[in-house]
């Protein structure tokens, strides 16, 4: 029987991924917008939080949010074409990560590790992310 219990030898990417799954959708989009700057998902998650406080991560926070929203909208089609949205989302986040991340990775060829991780979290939370993206592209934070 496969268990999704939290092991101490859990994969690093999975552990940070589970943290991403619980981030505010705004932070997910900003992370997506800034992912090209950093390949380390952990460093990116920390910098995004700091940017939410200070308003800047290389460029203004709101501008990264809009950029992230556009990126999400454009990568959605590629994800859909690969059948990512047809996958069931298990209720437990760890199980969801293990199912979604391997599907998102090949759907975004050439993408940075941090982009794939953030896109996986966006897929998992897509209803909220879609809503936030629409608002962000209309100028709302």
């Amino acid at each position, binding site marked *: 029987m496969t268990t999704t219990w*939290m092991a*101490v*030898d859990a994969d690093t990417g999975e552990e940070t991924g589970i*943290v991403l799954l619980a981030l505010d959708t705004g932070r997910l989009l900003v992370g997506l917008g800034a992912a090209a700057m950093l390949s380390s998902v*952990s460093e990116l998650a920390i910098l995004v939080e700091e940017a939410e406080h*200070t308003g800047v991560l290389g460029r203004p926070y709101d501008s990264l949010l809009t950029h992230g929203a556009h990126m999400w909208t454009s990568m959605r089609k590629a994800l859909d074409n690969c059948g990512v949205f047809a996958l069931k989302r298990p209720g437990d986040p760890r199980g969801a990560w293990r199912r979604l991340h391997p599907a998102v990775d090949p759907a975004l060829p050439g993408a940075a590790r941090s982009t794939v991780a953030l896109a996986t979290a966006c897929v998992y939370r897509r209803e909220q992310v879609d809503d936030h993206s629409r608002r962000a592209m209309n100028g709302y934070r």
Partner: protein
Amino acid sequence: MTTFIPGPELLGSPRGRRLPGWDAASLLLANRSLDDETDVLVAGAGPAGLAAVTALWHLGVRDVVVLDPSGRICGTFFDRVNALSQSVLRSPYEHHPGAEGHRDCELLDHARLSWEQLTDVERHQVRMAQSGQRGVVPLDVFEAFVMHLARAHQVADRGRTGRLLSIQRSGTALLAETTLGSVRAGAVVLAMGEQPSEAPARWNLPNPLPATIRHWHTSADPVLGPAVVVGSGLSAAHLIARQLQQGGTVTWVQRRSERYQCADVNASFFRPEGRAHFSRATRDGRAALLRQHRQPSIMFEFRPLLQSAERDGRLRVLRNTEIAGITGDAERAELTLEDGSRIPARGVLLALGTSPADVSEVLGHACQGSPADLDVNDATLELTAMPGVFLTGAQAAKAVGPASRNLDGHRVAAQRISRAIVAASAGHRPERTAGQL
């Protein structure tokens, strides 16, 4: 209440890893002059001061100056734990120096973002914390988290390297004299931490101290030869462990006023019901609770090492012993006990505990009598004798209870203080410039 019994494996955390978010520059206070005015002056950039600044930040109070003589955020704190070769905090993960009630990344999340570099023991502690059990925090994780907090709340930019000398009322504001000049502040938060306790005068310590007699916080170098450690708290345990791990022998002197106890501050004091229990106590009752919980204590993780060293003769423990004097020169030191016996050593390490920094000089005539008698409003931590001045950290023990010295107590204090400052700003600072707090 569940008793927390950590094992010796916790002491094996590595130190010096550069975990995600690590950047030493984040802790360096800005090297600028003081402005003439500020909304809030925080004296002390240690964990209590950091908690105060982050709490104020989340309530929109950004015109804050943080003053610290070390020039670094949590500088004294890290110097002291490094001098002990300490590698884990005693605090559990839920005690962190961030602001209360905000969706900031918490210490536990930060540890998980560092997963790749954590040992299996450290990962297990994370899992314990996720399961609602107590899990202790590696100092490397804590240090990277403090750096993150400092950057997120722009604490370094608000910092100045200097010392608060005095405060006096000036109209409806406060005039603070500092080593960098004077500044008018709407409020002053005293987060001045704890000072290592002095040795009793009757010991006649040489002045200046030779290199063979050292206080616990002054050096991380082990004694090269037989050592004597005086004291019975966590600092003493770290010093003894370091000597034993270097292959040395130790004589451990526990004075009559001390006892070795495998215990920690009662966890209930960190919970709302514990704080309510403390707040309901009479003045004498509070003093008794504080005395009881100021006893030095050593956590269980040291016990196997100390017991085995005592069994095989590497550690000699003198319990219930009083010291008559300590002498020393550049080569060796010697302890004389009250019964006249002498203990020669290559070095004597003094781990005599800490006591809250004396704020009476800063407060001047507003502090009549002992600093311990300062009257503080429980709900706001504001000094009765000097409105606008707030106490946090160890100085707030009379209002917050035994937890005041702990990270969690700092956060509780910061919440009370920041709310009080914001409430007072709504019309009670008529001399402040328009647009400021």
